[in-house]
């Protein structure tokens, strides 16, 4: 089973995030980056499927030069090859733009399955996997908690709300968005890290992929939400105050 896994590099969880005044993105100098955590689960699932069914795992990442590190981590953990879509302006893309670039790169591969994480820890759109499936014209399922592959078909356990699960079946090839927690990702071994040095990473650009994108959405500004507290004292007798409170809960807080 040949599997493409999409991996994104995102700011490290403990990175102090500085937002320049009026900026549309955080200041990236002086912060560390890491593999998007949800993608780590997708990668682990890809490696396990490969170990069970044979084939190869190809890690695809889009971003500036530094994002090659996410691919290298995938190679260190056991992926065979990497594809880097080199793009310094990738953060300006909306999920549709990202999915278009990824789809164009993935179409060049011979694959049976494409895995993505459920969402990215930076933008958190949660759309890229779904759009990618549409652009590739393939069946798709989200929030996957278990994959059973046999005879060219997939039996999938999806997580629903409130502790409910759903089993669905799909034919291959397909695109899946993996839920975090589906497995326990392995650590890269020292040998794996050294072996990754010799593995191939192909580099492509948007121009080489022939993708032109016109953004359908634009980030105006990012900011840390301001906490506002408002205390109001309700006056009158206990009965009157209670009545006012009920009114407020109904019409202002809308919880009744």
């Amino acid at each position, binding site marked *: 089973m040949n599997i493409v896994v999409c991996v994104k590099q995102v700011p490290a969880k403990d990175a102090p995030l500085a937002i320049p005044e009026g900026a549309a993105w955080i200041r990236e100098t002086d912060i560390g980056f*890491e593999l998007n955590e949800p993608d780590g689960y997708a990668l682990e699932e890809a490696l396990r499927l490969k170990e069970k069914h044979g084939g190869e795992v190809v890690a695809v990442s889009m971003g500036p030069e530094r994002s090659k*590190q996410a691919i*290298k*981590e995938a190679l*260190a953990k056991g992926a065979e090859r990497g594809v880097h879509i080199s793009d310094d302006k990738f953060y300006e893309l909306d999920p549709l733009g990202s999915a278009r670039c990824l789809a164009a790169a993935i179409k060049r591969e011979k694959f049976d399955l494409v895995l993505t994480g459920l969402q990215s820890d930076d933008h958190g759109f949660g759309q890229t996997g779904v759009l990618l499936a549409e652009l590739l014209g393939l069946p798709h399922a989200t929030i996957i908690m278990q994959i059973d592959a046999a005879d060219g078909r997939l039996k999938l356990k999806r997580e629903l709300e409130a502790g409910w699960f759903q089993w669905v079946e799909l034919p291959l090839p397909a695109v899946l968005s993996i839920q975090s927690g589906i497995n326990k990702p392995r*650590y*890269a*071994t*020292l*040998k794996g*890290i*050294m072996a*990754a*040095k010799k593995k191939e990473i192909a580099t492509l650009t948007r121009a080489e992929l022939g993708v032109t994108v016109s953004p359908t959405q634009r980030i105006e500004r990012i900011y840390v939400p301001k906490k506002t507290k408002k205390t109001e004292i309700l006056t009158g007798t206990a009965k009157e105050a209670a009545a006012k409170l009920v009114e407020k809960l109904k019409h202002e807080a809308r919880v009744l």
Partner: protein
Amino acid sequence: MDFSFSDEQNQLRRTVREFAAGEIAPHVMEWDEAAHFPAELVPKMGELGLLGVIFPESYGGAGLGYVEYVIVIEELAAVDASIALSVAAHNSLCSNHIYKFGTEAQRQKYLPRLTSGKMLGAWSLTEPGAGSDAGGTRTVAERRNGAWVLNGSKTFTTNGHSAGVCVAMAVTERDKGSHGISAFLVEHGTKGFRSGKKENKLGMRASETSEVLFSDCVVPAENLLGKEGEGFVNSLQILDGGRISIAALGVGIAQGALSAATKYSRERRQFGKTISEFQGIQFKLADMATQVEAARTLTYRAAWLADRGDARHTKESAMAKLFAGEVAVRVSSEAVQVFGGYGFIKDYPAEKYYRDSKLCTIGEGTSEIQKLVIARQLLGIR
């Protein structure tokens, strides 16, 4: 001059950090309180390659150098110094003595098991009456019927209870002084060999430190490690590398304490502000960070020298160990201070860094002994 780490070295750091966060961090206080050495970590660390960083792949190692080894110890120590200490004794003392001075047969017999974590290693030089003055070793080994018979006792051996093999120094020719001490390989389960009292310690509590006792312990002739009479001299060379690992241990502890203090200073509010807004705290953190960086730079330079392999690095290793050890104690003490009363309390991380740090000015040669070593190098005293 290039101070940057390679992509692979950065990846290694991330791997060890992830491993420590996932497998060690949740248990740190539990192991510390119970003085429990988590033997179950040994095969896991072996699988990752942390137990054979500096040995060639033909012995199951990773074929890397001291820079990578320092990265491993530093990152482990930032989370749990006890684990880092046990890994250091296993790697740069026991395994390295076998690698550097063992015969091919001895390397083949032990290194693959040590690097894979199937076996833990210990190294016994210190005795109750021979600490800083290790040349005063009393444990004896006598030749009898083509074998060696060991008698005596060692103290403060790291991994003394769990190790499958112990490299032990013993006197083979009394009147030859420091050229009359030899090294021996003694396997767990050998008749007449047992580990004695496990010490109850201030810090490094999850690392085993114990007595190792020999009474008419017979080992075959082939268990002599290195040339007869050269055990002590070889030990000094082993310590040149070992000290780099204790320096790394100090850097890791200091960094861990600094990170914890920095984070806390941003959260803790007094006088209507976070304490990080007080210049008194800012200057403290700035001093701590500067000391950590200086210790780190000395340590990586010693490691870099060790990797070049074209010169002895005795002086630089001793300097790194001396400085980083003292920095670990100072910085972790300041971290307790930043935490205020909570620094004194076991629910917060500062006090453990403080307790653990003190070993760094004692183990593998006290700070005073490092100064002796440095001065001898400076003055050309033999």
